[in-house]
């Protein structure tokens, strides 16, 4: 029995050593692939790029503890002067923001502050990916990210502005500053076209904060048909948290002076908010 126990311990140690060795090799391989992205040989660069992509596909499905082991190599690559290296490194964290929202905070727990600091990267794809990583964290992005998200609402890159807005919407339930920042953008002082762009984003970002919902409902009072249409669609996308819009949507849905398309959209939004199933499809 004792012998079996010792043998078991020996095998466990061997296995652990092998695992640690494999992880070490894996980390080294990752650093090597990032380094090879800078090669002047196109074949080497493409192979490294594809290698990193394959690594990422496997990495994103691992448990948080295993994923954490690659984080130092990714952080080092984020400090590289070569933009291609930083873009590919930032994709690792960006994918966490999209597919590992539930345990993202555990995966990135030691580097959240450092990632937020790199929101200032000169490359828009790096900024977008890193902001996406933090914006997606559950239950909400950390409060330290709210200020940087607000700053990047004025980012020169439109896609980055979109991610910053998404981050603020996600931070809004726990941050009045974030909710106010989004609501202010819906103010009548913002031109209707810009508001439409914002409202379309909100439909996807699905804010639940009452301050934002109230500002959205206000948009239904304007004469601008396109603005109303986008707002109705966004409210439908948001679903039950958009309940304060029900009364106005009912008026639109039953108003004979409103065109049929808008009425149908108001009905669809009401079904979504009131959680009613869509009408049965004709056979």
């Amino acid at each position, binding site marked *: 029995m004792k012998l079996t126990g010792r043998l078991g311990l020996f095998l466990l140690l061997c296995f652990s050593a092998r695992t640690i060795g494999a992880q070490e090799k894996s980390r080294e391989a990752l650093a090597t692939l990032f380094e090879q992205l800078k090669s002047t040989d196109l074949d080497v660069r493409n192979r490294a790029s594809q290698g990193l992509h394959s690594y990422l596909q496997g990495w994103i499905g691992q448990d948080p503890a295993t994923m954490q082991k690659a984080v130092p190599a990714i952080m080092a690559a984020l400090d590289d002067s070569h933009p291609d290296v930083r873009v590919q490194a930032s994709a690792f964290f960006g994918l966490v923001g999209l597919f590992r929202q539930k345990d993202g905070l555990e995966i990135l727990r030691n580097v959240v502050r450092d990632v937020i600091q790199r929101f200032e990267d000169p490359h828009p794809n790096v900024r977008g990916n890193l902001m996406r990583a933090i914006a997606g964290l559950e239950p909400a992005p950390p409060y330290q990210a709210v200020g940087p998200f607000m700053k990047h609402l004025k980012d020169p890159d439109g896609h980055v502005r979109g991610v910053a807005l998404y981050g603020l919407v996600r931070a809004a339930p726990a941050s009045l500053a974030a909710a106010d920042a989004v609501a202010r953008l819906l103010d009548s002082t913002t031109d209707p076209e810009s508001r439409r762009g914002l409202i379309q984003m909100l439909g996807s970002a699905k804010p639940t904060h009452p301050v934002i919902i109230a500002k959205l409902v206000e948009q239904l009072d304007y004469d601008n048909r396109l603005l109303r249409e986008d707002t109705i669609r966004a409210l*439908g996308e948001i679903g039950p948290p958009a309940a304060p819009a029900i009364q106005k949507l009912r008026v639109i849905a039953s108003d004979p002076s409103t065109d049929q398309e808008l009425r149908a959209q108001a009905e669809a939004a009401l079904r979504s908010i009131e959680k009613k199933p869509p009408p049965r499809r004709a056979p």
Partner: protein
Amino acid sequence: MTSKLEFTITTRAFIMPNNVGADLYSCPTSGGVYYKGDDRSFSASATSFRTQQRVVYRSDPGGFIVSHNRNVGQSRSYAKNAIDNNGRIGSEDEDGVGGDCSLWHAAGTAQTSGMNASKSTANGVRIYGNAGNPLNPVAEPIDWDYTINFNVANPSAPTYSLTVTHDCYPAHEAYIGNKPVYDWTPISNNMTYIASCLLGSGSITVIRSGNVQ
């Protein structure tokens, strides 16, 4: 020798399958949404695409861009029940009611303002840019960057050299006139693969050359 050759260069990004999904960003509680694909293979005369740029370049001494047209295909998303029957999106799924997470769900058109063309540093053009997903503003855009140069030393047999860098998703194709000069087929259409490609992982650079005719 003065040459006055004109070249029409067409570059496109398109989604090969009938649909891709599910994107849980919209309708997460009912299985996400599926995006309508272009449902085709490579074709010089294709009319379905996510993005298309067509540049007419005149290879006069110095060279200049005669025209530049930018187009995007409409993006359409459908709820899971649209593909439940046969795995495809078809006319039977066009219920005309948006925002309800049932059958056709939403439509939008990407902006073309990020799609650019300029004269390259040699005798040719650079066609580059990006286009986002209007139905998911948090998604990364499709990126591409072509440089196509011409050698017209022998005007009756001009040659080209092409360098392109793009995301590993979606499919890409390029033509000079009707001659295919570049094609790229993604190796997967699943959402993790698509997302990681669009985030900038796995981007590739390819160099090609040949006769224009």
